[in-house]
Every structure is written in C-alpha cells, then in structure tokens.
C-alpha cells in the first residue's frame, strides 16, 4: 500500500500542486475469493505484519448450527490478502518473479546501508567543522555512482552469458541475457542523474542504452529491434537478400539508432560480395563497401569504444567536431558520386542512398527509418543535432518526436524518460512508484538526489500533512512494510526503518513486537535486532512476553529465565511468593527436587521479597541434611545442625516452617550416638517447639498436615539430645 500516493489507476502525483487527489477516480476493486456461499453476514479484518490483511467472511449462523455435525456448508473462511502485490500497478511483478525479487531485495541491503553510513559520516564531519562540506559534497556523486553500479550489477549483467562456441556469421542481434525493464530504468536514472562524467557524451550513452533495451520499449507498437528480429527469422529462407525490402528497412532502422556494427554486418550479406558475382557487380560492391566504411568510421564522442563496437572514438569536443565535419564531407561526396549511375541494381542504389541520407541527417528519412519516438529522438541526437550538450532542448525534442510517433503503450520506461527529460523529479518518482514498485523508488531516490538540489529538497522536506515525514521517509516506510509482509524478508526491513529519522524507529518497534514468540530462534533474532538498534524497552517487552508464554505453557524454567532477562521484578517476586506458598503447604512432601531447580533459577538477587532468602537457606539445610543422612559423617551432621539453628534463630523464617524443620531433623538427631546439639541449642529448639504447640491453640493457626505424632517425636528426640548434652557438658 502506498500512502500519499495515487491509486493504481490515478494520475501522477504532484505533491506541490496543492490540488487534492481526485476522489472521483474510482478506487481499485478487488474481489476476494473465499469460497463462502453468499450472502455474507459479517466481515472481520485484522492487519498482521506489513501489508498483510486477514479477512474473515462469515455466513449468517443459524441457532441450530454448531456442535460439529450439521450443515455441509462452510460457515466462514479466513483469507490473507497481501495488499502490496497483485494490484497490477507494478510492471516488475510481470517480469521478475518472487524469488528473483527477493534476491534483489537482499542484495541491495549492503549497498544501501553503506551509502547511508557514508551520508551520516559526511553529515557528522560537516557538523563538526561548522562549515559547508563542499569538498566532500563534490565527491558525493561518486559514492552514489558506486552504489548505483552495485545495484545495477545486482539487477542483471547483460554480458554474463558465455559467448557462443561458433559465431553465427548471419546473426544480426547478439544473444544476451533477457533484459528487464527494472535494470533498464535503473540505468536511465544512473545516466541522467548520477554519472557526471557521462554528461558530455549523453547522446552516445543513450544509443548504448537503446541497444540494450530497445526490445522493452513497447509491446504493441513496432521497434527497430522488432524489425531486425523479424528479418533475422526470414533470413534463413532468403536467397538474394538485397531484393527483399525488409533487408533495406532493417539496415536503415539499425543505422538510424546508431547500431553501426549491426549495419556493417548486414551490409556484408549483400549479394555482390559473393565470389561468383564479383566481376559483374564490381561497382555495386564498391558502393556497398564504401557505405560500410563510412558507417564504421562515423565519429563518436565518447571516452572509449567497447570491443565489437564500430566508429571512430573522439575523446574531446573539438576533436569530435573536426572529425564530424570531415566525415560528413565524405558522406556528401559519396552521395554526389557518379558511380551511382553504374549501379545496376535499383534496390541497392536506393537502399544505400537512404543510408547516406540518414547519415547526413535528413529528417524525412530518419523519421521513416525509426518506429518508436524514442528511436526517432535518438537519431535526432545522433545525426541532426550531434553537438547537443546535456539536457539542452531535449525535452522540446522529445515532445516533437512523441507528436510524430505517438505511442499508445504507456510504458514505464518511456514515461520515466519523459519525466527525466522534462527535468521533473516528481514525475520520475511517480513513474517509479507506479510502474516499478517500492523497491525501485526507495533505492532510486538516492540517485535522484545525488546532484540535484531541487530533488534533494523535494525528497527531504518535512511534510506537516504527513506527521512531519519527508517523501523519502514515506517511501522507505512503504518499502519496509512490503518487506514486513513476508516471513523471509522482514529481517531486512530494520535497515530501511532505521534510516528514517522521524518515524522509522516507531514502526520498527511495532514490527519487532508483532513477531510471534513461540519460536525461540525467532525470539533470539528479534532480540538481536533490538540490541542492534538499541531498543532496550522493546527487548524487555519481548522477554516478558516470552516469559509469560513459557511460564503458562508448563516450561517454568524457561519462563523464569526470560523474566530474569527482562528484570521483571514484579513477576519474579510473584513467582517466588507462589513457590514459597506452595512449599509451605506441604513441606514434608518430597517435591524438594522440583522446586530446588526453580529456586536455583530465581537466584538470590531479587531481594528478600516472598521469603526467597529463607527458601535459599532452607534449600541449603535440605541438601546438607540429605548428605548427612546418606554419608553419615559427623561433619555433615554438624553442618546440618548449624543450618537448623541458623534457620530457627532467623526472624525471617516463617513460624509454619518451624515444626517441619524440626521434624526433618529428627532422624539425624536420633541416629547419632553423641549429641549434636549443646544444651543452649537444644533449649532454643525446645522453646520454639513450645511456641508452636501454643500457637496450635490460636484460631489463625494454619495447620500443615504434621500431626501431633510429629510434635511428639520431635519433643522426644530433643529431650534425649538434651539429656546426652547435659551429661557430656563439663
């Protein structure tokens, strides 16, 4: 979904116009296929992550419904709708499948993050030095170019296919990786917005671009590419190519857009080159070859020529102008030559002359040779106004070409180019949004603002109507929502959210809190993200949620672990209290092992609340007692008795534990030949015992299953111990 953006069928967004969005435009209606028989009684919705909307459609329930058996009809269905896809707005969905798009999404994260960190570093430096960061700014576009190249490579490498083993001499168009309009659009933006070095040879760059992506310009109207590939198919069955008008049409089309290598290659198919023809058609062949030479020596203003490309490379403008004048002279000279009269083959004569006229910049011939307005535009730039610099007059020229060759196929690429040529970043942004989707917009904004102050302001200005967000931030949030809508991509959304100064972190918090906590690996991943973006309060919350989930689902230990991680004192105290109460209820029962582990987990640092301190001492006593009874060593026995005395002396030991504690110790007291307690200690314990006996009479006494038999056995044990102790004492 795209807040602030027009509906899929709406016009371009021009946020400065002040004109409200035309509500009159009918919104996109999408039928939901749920399979529930109409009429629908109620519809419930719920947003889950990102653009995912759960829609529950219910039928009218009848009172006799329910109870399992009953009507065969489905009472209701829940459908998850991804509002970010399938609304037909993004051209990319058609040509880039989901897995490929995911590869691009993942691949672009490092480049984006690097660029953001460089931006932040530059801003930091500028702020520190309290001055304009002019020298840094001058280099900024180079950083963006590096970023652009990385992303461009990710979108597909046209040269990645291996060269065919046997070069087919009659192949007109080289087999390449299928171009995508996503990559084509990206390159357009790079050419016009980022690469400063390119500006002097923009026309040539456009020729190169067209060579790669001409096939994408339109699906319904014709293109040069289309003409050539049709001719290629026909070529196998052609005996004499020069008699076929499509041969000459193909030649003029290829020449008009500057595909010199294609032209020269095709000229060599001419029948006059065949050995048996040489004698009779010498002049004709000479003319064909002369044209081929002129084509292959056409001056081109560019830093270099890749292998396989023809033309003479001119690095500087004066060189180019000089070479161009000279070359044009040669073309004119050939055109006026007397040899034409000796050329007996009419079609060859006309065809070659046509090629010369194109090279001489004849508007009529150029217009006839091209199919699409962008091709016409390119040939204008190449042959009619070869000395154009930068954007000079380009928009006007484009308008003229569109008038001459109107296209009804409203293609994203041409729309984008019109926006670029009219120097209107809003239109470019709107085209990107409409045709290429949120990934493209989010990443392309960096290109737009690389060296364009107007675009920079347009993208970064805070909009009060949107809660103070900038357009850049809005698009990043929208893209992040798309990423959130899939379980395989939500993890990369934080990179984009954290790059939004105003509202990104707010959305990130919500995103992280919305992650289910049932899966422990997912919890760890979420917590890692919290740590990375310093969202301590969020991680605390997640730990609390995980804690209660495990606690309630019978995994007490894991629950306590998470509560501790979250420093959830309230709940830990509550657990300690529960534990304490439970142990108090049946202290003699042998559930020692069970609570011992929990007590261990709770630790001792959560304060004395809930008698946890007592429980720790009690645990020590119990352990020691066990050792003493098993090992029967005098030392262990003495240790146990010491714990007992400590516990009984400690005011924090609740009275209801006194008797159980003493009762636990009876066996130990009885089994030793020598008294374990001295007179004073025994007296203390007897006093406590007396207190317990007295307390029994009080109404608020809470009994804990220990019978009077227990009381008696303790009394007896203590009495005999006292007797021994008195005898022993000096």
């Amino acid at each position: 979904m795209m807040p602030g953006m027009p509906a899929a069928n709406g016009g371009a967004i021009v946020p400065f116009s002040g004109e409200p969005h035309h509500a009159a435009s009918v919104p996109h209606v999408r039928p939901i296929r749920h399979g529930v028989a109409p009429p629908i009684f109620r519809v419930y919705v719920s947003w889950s992550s990102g653009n995912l909307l759960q829609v529950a459609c219910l039928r009218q329930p009848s009172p006799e419904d329910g109870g399992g058996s009953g009507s065969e009809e489905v009472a209701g269905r829940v459908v998850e709708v991804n509002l970010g896809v399938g609304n037909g707005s993004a051209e990319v969905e058609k040509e880039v499948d989901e897995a490929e798009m995911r590869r691009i999404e993942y691949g672009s994260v490092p480049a984006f993050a690097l660029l953001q960190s460089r931006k932040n570093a530059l801003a930091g430096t500028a702020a520190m030095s309290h001055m304009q960061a002019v020298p840094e700014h001058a280099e900024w576009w180079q950083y963006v170019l590096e970023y652009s190249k990385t992303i461009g490579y990710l979108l597909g490498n046209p040269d990645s296919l291996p060269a065919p083993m046997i070069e087919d001499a009659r192949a007109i168009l080289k087999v390449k990786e299928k171009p995508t309009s996503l990559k084509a659009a990206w390159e357009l933006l790079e050419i016009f917005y980022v690469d400063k070095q390119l500006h002097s040879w923009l026309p040539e760059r456009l020729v190169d671009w067209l060579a790669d992506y001409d096939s994408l310009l339109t699906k319904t109207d014709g293109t040069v590419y289309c003409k050539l590939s049709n001719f290629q198919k026909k070529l196998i069955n052609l005996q004499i190519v020069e008699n076929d008008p499509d041969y000459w049409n193909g030649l003029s089309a290829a020449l008009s857009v500057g595909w010199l290598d294609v032209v020269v290659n095709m000229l060599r198919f001419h029948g006059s080159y065949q050995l048996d023809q040489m004698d009779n058609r010498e002049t004709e062949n000479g003319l064909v070859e002369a044209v081929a030479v002129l084509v292959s020596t056409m001056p081109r203003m560019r830093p270099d020529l890749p292998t396989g490309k023809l033309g003479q490379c001119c690095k500087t403008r004066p060189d180019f102008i000089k070479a161009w004048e000279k070359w044009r002279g040669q073309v004119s000279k050939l055109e006026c030559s007397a040899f034409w009269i000796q050329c007996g083959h009419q079609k060859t004569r006309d065809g070659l002359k046509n090629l010369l006229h194109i090279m001489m910049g004849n508007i009529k011939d150029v217009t006839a040779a091209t199919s699409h307005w962008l091709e016409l535009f390119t040939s204008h730039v190449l042959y009619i106004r070869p000395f154009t610099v930068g954007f000079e007059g380009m928009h006007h020229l484009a308008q003229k070409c569109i008038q001459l060759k109107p296209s009804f196929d409203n293609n994203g690429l041409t729309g984008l180019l019109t926006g670029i040529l009219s120097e209107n970043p809003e239109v470019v942004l709107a085209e990107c949004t409409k045709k290429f989707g949120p990934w493209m917009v989010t990443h392309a904004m960096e290109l737009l603002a690389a060296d364009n102050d107007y675009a920079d302001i347009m993208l970064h200005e805070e909009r009060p109507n949107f809660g103070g967000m900038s357009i850049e931030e809005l698009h990043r949030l929208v893209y992040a929502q798309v990423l959130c809508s899939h379980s395989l991509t939500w993890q990369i959304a934080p990179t984009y959210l954290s790059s939004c100064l105003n509202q990104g972190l707010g959305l990130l918090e919500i995103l992280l809190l919305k992650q289910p906590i049932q899966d422990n690996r997912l919890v760890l991943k979420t917590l890692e993200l919290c740590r990375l973006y310093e969202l301590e309060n969020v991680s605390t919350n997640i730990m609390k949620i995980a804690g209660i989930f495990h606690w309630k689902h019978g995994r007490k230990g894991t629950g306590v672990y998470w509560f501790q991680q979250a420093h959830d004192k309230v709940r830990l105290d509550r657990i300690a209290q529960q534990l304490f109460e439970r142990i108090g209820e049946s202290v003699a029962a042998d559930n020692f092992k069970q609570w011992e582990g929990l007590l261990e987990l709770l630790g001792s640092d959560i304060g004395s609340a809930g008698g946890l301190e007592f429980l720790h001492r009690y645990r020590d006593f119990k352990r020691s007692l066990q050792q003493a009874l098993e090992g029967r060593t005098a030392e262990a026995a003495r240790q146990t008795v010491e714990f007992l005395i400590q516990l009984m002396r400690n005011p924090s030991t609740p009275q209801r534990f006194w008797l159980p504690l003493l009762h636990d110790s009876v066996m130990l007291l009885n089994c030793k030949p020598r008294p374990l307690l001295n007179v004073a200690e025994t007296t203390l314990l007897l006093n406590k015992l007396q207190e317990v006996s007295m307390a029994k009479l009080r109404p608020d006494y809470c009994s804990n299953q220990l019978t009077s038999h227990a009381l008696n056995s303790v009394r007896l044990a203590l009495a005999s111990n006292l007797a021994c102790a008195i005898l022993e004492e000096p």
Partner: protein
Amino acid sequence: MADRQVAQLGPGAACCGWNHCGRRLAAGAVDGSVSVYDSQPSPSSKWQAHECAIVNVVWLPPEYGDAIACVCADGTLSLWEEVAEDDQLPTWRKCKVFEGGNSHILNVQFGLLLSSLKMVTAYSDGQVKVYELLDSLELDKWQLQAEFQNITDPVSRNGKPECVSASIAWSPRRGEGQQASFVIGFNSDSPHFNSCKIWEFEEAHQRWLPLIELGSSEDKGDRVHAVAWAPNIGRPYEIIAVATCKGIYIWHAGFNPEADRGLSTENVAVLPGHDGEVWQLEWDMGGMTLASTGGDGMVKLWQANLNGVWHEQAVLDCNGSRD
C-alpha cells in the same frame, strides 16, 4: 496469487478476533463454543465457553499470556487462558467470569499501562467500568478501579439509556510517562452517551476524566458503530477514526503539553463509509492505512495523500462467488 486461505470456520461461527501478531484467531459461535486457529485450516482447540451465543472475542495483550475475553449474548463476560503442564497439549482454562448484573456487558477492551493491565467494559445501561488486574501472573484477580457514565456533564444524565452496542479503543501509546487513555462511544437512544469521548486517568487524583468529545455540535449525538485509535510511530498528533451512521470521521487529536490539560481536536475528514452500517475499523501497523468493513460486504482501505486529503484507496469485495 496474493490471497491465501488461512482458516475454515466451523458451523455457527459468529464473531472472531486475532491476537497481537495476527497469527492466532479465536472464533466465537452461536452455540457458545470458541475455536482457536493457529495458521491451520482446522482449529487447534475448541471448547464450550458459554451456554448461549458469543458476540465478541477479544485477545488480551501478549504480556499476560495467550488469553481471550468472550462477550456472551446473555450479557456476561468470561476470561480464558491457554495453559499447559510440562509436555502436555495446551488447554484453555476459565479464569474469571464477570456478570452483567441488571444490564448486559456489551464490549470489552484491554489496555496496557506500565506494568498493569486495565480492562474497560461497557454496559447496556451506558455504564463504563474500568478494572485493574491485581496479580501479574494470574488473570483471576481484578479490582474495580472506576465506574462512570460516558457523559461529560452530569446534568445530561436523565434516565438510563438503552444501548445496543459500544465501541472502545485504547490509546496504543505505551511509552514511559504515558497517561492511560481510551476512547468510547455508544450506539444508544441517548445522544449524550453516544458521542465519542476520550477518557484519561489522572494519576494525581486517581480518577478517570473525560478529556474531550469527538464531534461537531450537529453530529455529536450520532450513534457510534466503531472506533479505532491509530498506532503512532512519531506523529506529533494522534489519529482516531470514528464510524457513525453518517460515515467515517477522521480526527486529529493533539496533546498540547503547554496548555493546561490541553487537547485540541480537529475533524480532518468525513469519509462516505459503507453502503450500510460500518462494522469494524482497523488501522495498519504504521497507522497510515485504515481498513473498514461494513454492511455492503466490502472491505475499504482509506489513506491520506501528501496534502493530507483522505481518500478511498482500494476496495476488497467479499460478496464474491464460491470459486
């Protein structure tokens, strides 16, 4: 295909609610049973919660476990939580039942504030009760914190209104130092009770106060069918959507710390809503898109453009055929 079927509801299903992450769904049925679905077509649990029809199912915040509140047609409210012992399969346990008394409980919503859980219940006689959970581990101990009527002016209290339904939404803000607040509106025969008001808990005097009324003088008493408070990821103002019989109203509410208890509201849009009553309003996680459902069987999505103008962005038609 972008649409994915996630669950098939059993016979008698009458209402449903999703948990915080949208992965679990609880559906209440006319026979009083509740089914819980976990990303599987068939339910993971099903039990008899009430004797008669369940009219609303609401999940508690996840900080209190996997728990739901069921509003029953007989006017009672029950709380259920999922528990398990060791490696046993989880089961749903009844924690608490709230009786309606002389009136019916119409709706319930839970709010999370610092470390306490609050529950607002609305009654058919126009009463509003706020409960607070006393024990952070158990859902059975609740304390009635406040009881009031949804009116700003005590003079307007005349007789008991007959309320058909009530709409409640808590403020989703949950940061430190946030005051507890919620918005509530009724669908009743009394205009004073109907109008949506934002109530805020005043710590100093430990009481709930009506902060402001969302409504212009002529629309104030309109019956309210749904409210939704948008998540705020950084806006300086809050956005609240209110659906009445006249349409969907989008309100901006700005908490102004300088003015004394100052809160300014502005109605920024009146959207046509649905052909028929609006059933539900629901904001997306960024608070930028509002989804509404209504009597025409449509789901409509609303957004503001960069000029702040609200418009209908897309429509999902649920009246479809069986294919």
